[in-house]
């Protein structure tokens, strides 16, 4: 930052477009990841309007291999794998994105409070340590088995183990920021706390949070698949990538297409999200980024 703007001629600021292009050239993984993810989201949202009903059984057409008529083949109940894979994308992506959003929002709130209110900090952090000590997949399985299987329960069950990590990250940022001179200056001129949080703390946590959220999204998609595989995930009549693979796993030697296509879609999506996260992280301050892992 240059202070004496009136005496020194500023280098001409690049236009927005040029800056984006430069950023993309330096971090090519970001546009790649975004692009693939975008395509997946569009396919998942629009796809089901153009395919047959992914739930429609037709037992007389069961286990047909991929062909012109059935693009990805059919499963053991004669449902089309193509239609199911696209519909499954909706569920898997919805779970991934919701978990990422909910856990960052909840984690952000708890983290800021905990970083600012000393009295609560100790208690909150002990609870978070305790939650982190319970292996996430186990906690999620237990939560789902104890309640009933539904998409919202799956989202909650995957979110709960992710929250403590976000809380820790946010709290660390808050703790380091609150000692900064400009924050103390703001406090001393009587700026109200909510305003300080909004104006100074939130923007500082945003960048690492976005990176963290992408990783959470990627892991949530995988965890959903794992939970469904174990029979403790999304209700089976709703096709998610995990569910389709879970149902098709019995047949992986006879009719590999049932798990091949959703598996491929899942791997590509998660890969794209991870690559996106890596790119975003690299383009941020590496020291902040490291704190998250």
């Amino acid at each position, binding site marked *: 930052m240059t202070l004496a703007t009136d005496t020194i001629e500023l280098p001409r600021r690049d236009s927005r477009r040029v800056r984006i292009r430069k950023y993309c050239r330096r971090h090519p993984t970001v546009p790649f990841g975004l692009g693939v993810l975008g395509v997946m989201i569009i396919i998942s949202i629009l796809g089901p309007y153009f395919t047959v009903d992914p739930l429609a059984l037709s037992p007389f057409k069961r286990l047909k291999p991929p062909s012109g008529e059935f693009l990805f083949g059919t499963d053991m109940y004669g449902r089309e794998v193509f239609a199911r894979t696209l519909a499954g994308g909706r569920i898997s992506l919805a779970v991934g994105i919701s978990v990422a959003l909910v856990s960052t929002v909840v984690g952000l709130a708890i983290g800021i409070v905990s970083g600012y209110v000393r009295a609560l900090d100790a208690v909150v952090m*002990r*609870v978070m*340590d*305790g*939650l*982190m*000590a*319970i*292996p*996430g*997949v*186990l*906690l999620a*399985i*237990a*939560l789902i*088995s*104890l*309640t*009933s299987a539904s998409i919202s329960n799956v989202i909650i069950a995957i979110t709960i183990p992710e929250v403590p990590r976000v809380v820790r990250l946010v709290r660390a940022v808050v703790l380091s920021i609150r000692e900064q001179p400009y924050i103390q200056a703001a406090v001393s001129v009587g700026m109200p706390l909510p305003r300080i949080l909004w104006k100074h703390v939130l923007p500082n946590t945003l960048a690492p949070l976005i990176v963290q959220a992408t990783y959470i999204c*990627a892991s949530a998609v*995988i*965890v959903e*698949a*794992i939970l469904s*595989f*174990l*029979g*403790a995930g999304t209700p089976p009549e709703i096709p998610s990538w*995990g569910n389709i*693979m879970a149902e098709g*796993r019995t047949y*992986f*030697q006879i009719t590999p297409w049932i*798990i091949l296509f959703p*598996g491929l879609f*899942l*791997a590509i999506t*998660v*890969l794209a999200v*991870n*690559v996106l996260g*890596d790119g975003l992280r690299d383009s941020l301050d590496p020291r902040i980024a*490291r704190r998250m*892992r």
Partner: protein
Amino acid sequence: MYAYIAKRTLAVIPVMLVVALVVFLLLHLTPGDPAAVIAGDYARPEDIVRIRKQLGLDEPLYIQFSTWLWSVLRGDLGVSIFSNMPVSKLIGQRLEPTLALSVSTILFSVLIAVPMGVWAAWRSGTWVDRSIMVFAVLGFSVPVFVIGYVLIYVFSLKFGWFPVQGYKAIGDGFLPFLRSIALPTIALGVVYVALIARISRASMLEVLNEDYIRTARAKGQVERKVMMRHALKNAAVPIITIIGIGIALLIGGVVVTESVFNIPGLGRLTIDAVLRRDYPIIQGVILVFSAAYVIVNLLIDISYSFLDPRIRY
């Protein structure tokens, strides 16, 4: 240093208390009456009332919690609803396969991943680095059960090198044991390898930029010596930390791997218990896994003070 160790050890107590509380509340705040489940298909209402009394389910929650905690502390994890066997015995029966699989996975992953990470850092920016990093991201993106099935298909069915399923105890001979856990270890290890390789590379890269490395190189020290003695030693702390944190990931993977390879370990026990709503087992297994996680991380924390004398709290 001893003061630090003592302090760190004491800090485990509140964490485990929270774990216990969460595990306890999990069962008592969710819908569904454990007594009705225990009573089974043909229960009469009076049976359910009797069982509720027997289990102390009619007492206030805090009393139930303290009685439960007290019995857990004495090693009594309750009795399985379905098989009527003590949970601690069921867990004991299944400890070996899970332990063996976890240890072999950690060994395998560290032996593969650390050299990979070091190599990638050393050749940073080259195709070696790129391909190792691509592998690392891929390893994160494929669910463990898919890897497991592919391994079974190729190495057990096509080549016939390894058994398809099951577990052979170490007591039955070391080679059969190794054969039985080879594929599960690899399947489970992929994520872990990816994780450790990434961290190893990152922390090596950082260390390699430090002044003392430049000094060492300037002094004309052999590259191998620079990498091993200076760089890796200083990069060790974050690598070991991630191994500890990764245990949580590993435990999740164990559950899946055991069901793919039909290994009678704690993971299979968990899934069976979950499918049957065998609450005492679910509670016991989560407690045991969490305790293992906490203890491993405690040991890791303590080991820092030996590894890096700068760390003193």
